[in-house]
């Protein structure tokens, strides 16, 4: 470690294609070449993941070395003369691409990643038209038996990125490398289906897949069908993280705020009402704050763990069921919304619940599973009918021929249109915590919170912590994003060494902005931009505390308090099951 720290400050000068460049020691050839303005093709490499150096496409010549070197993992050394595009290098890369393609389906047109595929792009760059090698088609079964993720291993290029996220980052361990040689590939244990594995449907594997081997279950057809059904009143809710990512699908910069255009697009697609999940996010804060205060007061099970992230819920149900009593009973905002849409809204709009079709636009693949959970039927119907990812919404917008950039700005519909900045930041890791603290503080302290920004819980660090003074009582809170980080906190609780009172956990690194349903190709830097935009929206909001959302208060006054307590509770709360793997 000491040694590494020492070399970090050192600088190294190398030439790349004749251009001299000085970079810090330890910089990879890939990174140095990028800084010098040379792009080196990669396939297995992902900037946020450890290099695996297995596809062998990023090979370059280093003078004095007998073999070509992989740029993705080889650090530059003082005096290196590197050539990134010699005839030999191009020939090697082309042959390797041909070899990969000889083991890959040739039917790009049928693939969900057509025109958005890293392999296809490379094949095009290297002008691979005829393959000199024998192309062998595999005939592996497609796995599409769960509601969230589809695996088509025929298309897998064995880059291993998905394994890295599943095993190392998320520590879910559902998929792994298996077998060797020709049979080498990615598999669950004993080839079981994802549903029977430890898979949480977080979809992080999907977001890093360079090709069409992993994707979400395509539910757009079901939505089109509903929209075309005159009998149905189709409403849609959009999660906070979608609005700062959707633009990427239309060539906009990461973090572009597209709320107005997104609403306009949804209206043009034919949704009767466009609602905001933020509304029920505010509601969640009211309910969850109460729960926290009650547990603090009654010395209930602490720490209290948040429950909005369905991938996280799957994780604790499958891996740590003994800790389920710590999880808040609050439904996620999407499910609270579904329950209210088919009860409160149905009453208000005078539409029979069975005619209401609820669609959610989520940054998430696990939400697709969440809405199918048998307990999510408190309205008497499946509360949310279909969940689409950000990517699927983009697909629908493209299909309908809308010019996204040219759309006007529209606004959310009532009664679920009003929300606070606190709800918006649900989409960022730490956001739920911050929103809860704003409300809990004012509830307990009985005075106005001056500085609303709890900066200690913001940002992409895996685990963040803070101590908040609530009218003399010090409350310790922590925030984890990414299931690997969640695991660290859970182990602490298990060992009885957890000092926290309240913990927010999001399954995906970065929180929902980094969700499994978000646009492909996002790096950590892109996620940072999405994050910033959510906080920018919060900053500009007139209302920034959930308990100030009067529309939410109205739901309590008009509806929840008038129904039986037990029913109101059922609409907003849920229970969990031991699903130990």
């Amino acid at each position, binding site marked *: 470690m000491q040694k590494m720290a020492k070399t970090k400050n050192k600088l190294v000068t190398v030439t790349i294609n004749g251009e001299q460049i000085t970079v810090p020691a330890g910089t990879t050839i890939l990174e140095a070449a990028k800084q010098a303005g040379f792009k080196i093709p990669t396939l297995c490499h992902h900037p946020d993941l*450890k*290099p*695996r*150096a*297995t*596809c*062998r*496409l990023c*090979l370059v010549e280093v003078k004095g070395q*007998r*073999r*070509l070197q992989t740029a993705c*993992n*080889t*650090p530059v050394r003082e005096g290196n003369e590197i050539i990134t595009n010699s005839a030999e290098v191009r020939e*090697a890369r082309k*042959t*390797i691409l041909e*070899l*990969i393609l*000889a*083991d890959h389906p040739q039917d790009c047109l049928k693939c969900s990643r057509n025109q958005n595929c890293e392999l296809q792009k490379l094949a095009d760059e290297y002008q691979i038209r005829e393959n*000199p*090698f*024998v192309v062998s088609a595999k005939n592996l079964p497609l796995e599409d038996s769960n509601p969230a993720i589809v695996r088509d291993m025929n298309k897998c290029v*064995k880059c*291993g990125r998905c394994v890295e996220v599943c095993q190392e980052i998320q520590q879910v361990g559902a998929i792994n*490398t298996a*077998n*060797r*040689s*020709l*049979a*080498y*590939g990615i598999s669950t244990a004993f080839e079981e289906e994802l549903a029977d594995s430890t898979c949480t449907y977080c979809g992080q594997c999907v977001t890093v897949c360079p090709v069409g081997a992993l994707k979400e279950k395509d539910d757009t057809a079901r939505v089109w069908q509903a929209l075309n059904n005159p009998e149905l009143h189709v409403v849609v809710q959009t999660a906070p993280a979608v609005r700062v990512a959707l633009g990427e699908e239309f060539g906009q910069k990461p973090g572009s705020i597209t709320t107005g255009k997104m609403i306009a697009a949804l209206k043009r697609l034919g949704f009767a009402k466009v609602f905001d999940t933020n509304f029920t996010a505010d509601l969640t804060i009211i309910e969850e704050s109460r729960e926290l205060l009650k547990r603090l007061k009654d010395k209930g099970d602490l720490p209290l763990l948040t429950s909005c992230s369905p991938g996280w819920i799957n994780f604790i149900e499958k891996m740590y069921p003994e800790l389920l009593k710590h999880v808040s009973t609050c439904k996620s905002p999407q499910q609270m919304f579904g329950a209210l849409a088919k009860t409160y809204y149905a009453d208000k709009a005078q539409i029979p619940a069975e005619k209401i079709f609820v669609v959610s636009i989520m940054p998430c693949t696990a939400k697709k599973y969440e809405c199918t959970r048998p307990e999510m039927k408190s309205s008497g119907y499946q509360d949310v009918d279909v969940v689409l990812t950000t990517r699927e919404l983009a697909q629908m917008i493209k299909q309908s021929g809308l010019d996204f950039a040219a759309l006007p700005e529209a606004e959310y519909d009532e009664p679920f249109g009003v929300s606070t900045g606190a709800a918006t930041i649900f989409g960022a890791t730490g956001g739920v915590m911050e929103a809860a603290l704003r409300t809990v503080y004012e509830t307990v302290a009985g005075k106005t919170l001056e500085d609303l920004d709890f900066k200690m819980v913001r940002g992409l660090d895996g685990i963040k912590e803070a101590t908040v003074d609530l009218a003399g009582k010090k409350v310790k809170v922590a925030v984890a994003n990414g299931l690997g980080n969640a695991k660290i906190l859970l182990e602490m609780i298990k060992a009885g060494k957890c000092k926290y009172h309240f913990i927010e956990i999001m399954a995906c690194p970065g929180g929902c902005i980094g969700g499994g349903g978000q646009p492909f190709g996002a790096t950590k830097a892109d996620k940072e931009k999405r994050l910033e935009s959510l906080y920018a929206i919060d900053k500009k909001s007139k209302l920034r505390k959930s308990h100030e959302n009067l529309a939410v208060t109205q739901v309590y006054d008009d509806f929840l308090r008038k129904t039986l307590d037990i029913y109101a509770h059922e609409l907003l709360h849920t229970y969990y099951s031991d699903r130990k793997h």
Partner: protein
Amino acid sequence: MSKLMPLLSANFGQITPTSVEEYIGTGGFTGLRKALKMTPQEIIDEVKTAKLRGRGGAGYPTGAKWQQLYDIKHFPKYIVCNADEGEPGTFKDKLFLEKDPLRVIEGMTIAGYVFNAQEGYIYIRGEYAAQQKVFQEAVDQAVAAGYLGENILGTEFSYHIHVMTGAGAYICGENSALLNSLEGKVGRPRVKPPHLAEVGLFEQPTLVNNVESFANIPTIVQIGGEKYLSYGTAESGGTKLICLSGNIANPGVYEIPFGITLRDIIFDEELGGGPAGSKKVKFYHLGGQSGPCGFLPQLDTPYCYQALREKGLSVGSGAIVVLDESVCVIDYLLTVTQFFIHESCGKCTPCREGNKQIHVLLEKLSQGKATKADLQLLQRLSNLLPKTSFCGLGQAAATALSTCLKNLRSEFEAHLTGNCPAGVCFTKQESGEQ
């Protein structure tokens, strides 16, 4: 003068392998006793003077490897003995394990002393289950006799050896794959850097040497590097255990001094004794499946690292598979390629997909369906694999193919026109054999 030189193999078959007493009776443990009175640097210097090179296959100078690890001041360090002898045609480490395990233990213990290591591991391939038992017994005996374990020979030095098993994977002979396997993981090679000397077993600085390399250490310490060097050539110190198999009259393991010729090895009555049957020698495969093939004009090359390298040949593991004129080069290379297809870990493209396509092309040749373009493609792949593969396995998988393409070109070309000079192809009935 005899071309045999039983410097390391003298005990084979002569003593009870696990008997410390009998081992001492033949001069065993004098190396260790001497070593414990030397400084680690003095021992490393002797190994350097001896010009011992790694006997596993890569032939890296052992002294240099030891110095690199010695210079790393980070502890604990681990000693690992690579007993994953999997190169087809190689069966000499097996003899050390079952016929003179205490010599290997002594070598590993000296290494432990040099690097101030407390733990040594020997990774023995799963197929050598019987040898694992013998070795474990030898370890237990050595501990009981005070040559291993706590306070060895009454000194401050304590050192333990753990016998670990493989489970059937040639790739685990690659050192980083071996370390993964030792850790109970899948034996796929690691990304380098970091190098194993720095980040090895359990992420600690680690020495990995082959069985035969360790077996040399007691002798080098005992007789001194200079004397040891004198048994071989100026650049290749000492002796080498070679393994003869294939179409040869006297298959087996022989310990020879470096410097005798390939012709001596294959034809000398004391050694190979020439081809087994009436057919003439056509070529020979050196150093295992990953090594190059040698041909008749190269027979007078002295068997040592430098001379072989100049001719595009290599010592490798010490295997020498002799092939006579009944062998078809295409059929032989198909077997070699099948081996690499079976043993590739599968993670990198050139090795996984390249070997598959090499096999496709060789099969086309063996069926008389290949074209000139196929031959070019074969050449292209044989150039690609060594330059682009992730690890030594893939880099070496096409070595035999390359050397045969170069030296037996006419036999490849004959197959283009449906002619197999050895009479092996085109006559075979389609059988269920894979």
